[in-house]
């Protein structure tokens, strides 16, 4: 069920409740709760080491959580393995591009389409006519996804020969291959210039308009301001603030987390 409920509020697609993860004695994420509304572009901000990527790893099942719950619509997913979570509809990209070596751009996206292949491994092995038709359909779908990220003309090149920005877009197309309900983008514009970042922002908006929910981990304040509907800020693994991008950026705790406390200097001055 998605869309507005009786209260006029839309039901959250993702609801995280008091999630926690420790690495040895270090609490990378602790007691963190947040929601992502269906059909929105949500931002996740925080200084380096705040635990943003750990949180994305917890949501996508790459890491098991120590405590708390994560719900995708009505399903609790915090104990599910990564491939089950992918089948349930969460796809992700990585902070450092992680494409498969030795595969063409098209093959990468085809690998992303694995769960939506519409044929059994047996039928595909035997090369049955039905399986071949399904494969052709997936190939066309993959090319359409590449077209969305403006890489259709690179389909048959090896992914490692592409530029960094292009590789990031291949990764997005590959994630879209799983036909997700929620797309997690971990710093999608890292290492990109302003124009390329804007392109990503526009792509995210067009995906949202197509019905996809997106959660972006982002450092680029301008991008968050321009493209996110709602932002959650975390620091030292904990919840810090949330609200509209403007509210969050103006929030004194957020300012303090990013730029240090101006009040400290003032307090010292008054003490003198």
């Amino acid at each position, binding site marked *: 069920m998605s869309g507005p409920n009786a209260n006029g509020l839309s039901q959250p697609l993702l609801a995280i409740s008091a999630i926690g993860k420790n690495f040895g004695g270090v609490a990378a994420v602790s007691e963190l709760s947040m929601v992502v509304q269906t059909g929105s572009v949500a931002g996740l901000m925080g200084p380096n080491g705040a635990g943003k990527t750990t949180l994305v790893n917890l949501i*996508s*099942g*790459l890491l098991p959580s120590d405590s708390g719950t994560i719900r995708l619509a009505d399903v609790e997913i915090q104990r599910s*393995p*990564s*491939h089950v*979570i*992918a*089948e349930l509809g969460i*796809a*992700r990209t*990585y902070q450092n591009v*992680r494409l*498969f*070596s*030795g*595969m*063409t751009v098209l*093959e990468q996206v*085809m*690998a*992303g389409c*694995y*769960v939506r*292949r519409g*044929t059994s*491994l047996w039928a*595909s*092995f*035997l*090369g049955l006519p039905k399986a071949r038709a399904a*494969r*052709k359909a997936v*190939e*066309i779908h993959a*090319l*359409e996804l590449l*077209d969305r990220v403006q890489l*259709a*003309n*690179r*389909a*048959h*090149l*090896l992914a490692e*020969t592409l530029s960094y920005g292009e590789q990031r877009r291949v990764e997005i197309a*590959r*994630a879209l*291959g*799983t036909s997700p309900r929620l797309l997690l983008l971990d710093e999608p514009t890292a290492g990109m210039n302003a124009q390329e970042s804007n392109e990503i922002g526009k792509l995210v908006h067009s995906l949202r308009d197509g019905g996809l929910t997106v959660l972006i981990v982002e450092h680029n304040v301008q991008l968050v301001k321009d493209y996110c509907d709602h932002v959650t800020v975390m620091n030292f693994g904990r919840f810090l603030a949330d609200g509209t991008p403007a509210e969050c950026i103006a929030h004194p705790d957020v300012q303090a987390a990013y730029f240090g406390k101006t009040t400290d200097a003032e307090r010292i001055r008054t003490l003198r």
Partner: protein
Amino acid sequence: MNAMQGILDFWAAYRSTLAFAIVNSFLALSTYAVLSAGILSFATVTYAAFGGFLGARLVLATGFDPMLTLPAAALAGAVLSYLVALIFLRLESHWMALASLALILITRVIVINIPVVTGGVNGMSVPLPVSLELLAVLIALAALVFWRLSVSWYGIAAQSVREDTAVASSLGIAPRKIQTIAFVISGAVGGLGGMLLAGALQFISPDTYFVNIAFTMIAGVVLGGSYHWTGVIIGAAVFTALPVIAQAIIPEFQDVANGIVLLLIMIFLPRGLVDPLSIRLRKNFQIPVARAIEDPSISKPGVVK
């Protein structure tokens, strides 16, 4: 007439080398089957021993049709490898490699200690004639299977798991499932290979299935090319023929020659004799890239705008 005689002589001299090259191809393909899903395992030796002794005993004890022992050995290997997979897939990759070496040692102990089946330390003779024609047909069938695997959805999934297990999993590919399938294929091919080895040797003992075949098999896979099944067959053939040819040409430097060839391959072809990546990279530059960029329709067959 002399040339004809020469060819016949050559054929007579190297016929058995060719037979062993094909047998070793099976063992190397078995190792490749798991390696292509990201697992380094030497357990092929165990599947081969199981297939070989079981097949030989079936023929001797029950008068089993020799031709039927081949599928029986493949099936036995597959079942065994499934059981091995249940245990091994709980281990991290390097522990898995180590555990598979331990399995080879355990296999030898078991083979020695059940003389009723295996003939114990004395070994047993194998009344199963394996002709070169039969081997040729079987390797062609194996090639067909590996070709289909590589171009099917299983191939895409296995390559994804091999390249990055975590990413593959986040795309909905279940790594355990894919790797279990890989183990079963490895077991079937290994069991069959063990039976063929028994047939080709006519005599098997605990020493037949030991670390020495693990070496030939790994050399074939890694130096032949661990990224494509054709490399594995070529690699196994090269490393079966190499010692024989070296022995014939420069007997006094045979081991040195082997070593030099291994070194040359490692230095100049680190990804093996057959490397799909470098072939594809070369192809990349052959495609007029500029033209492909200008015309977006060029590489999009079947897409109607």
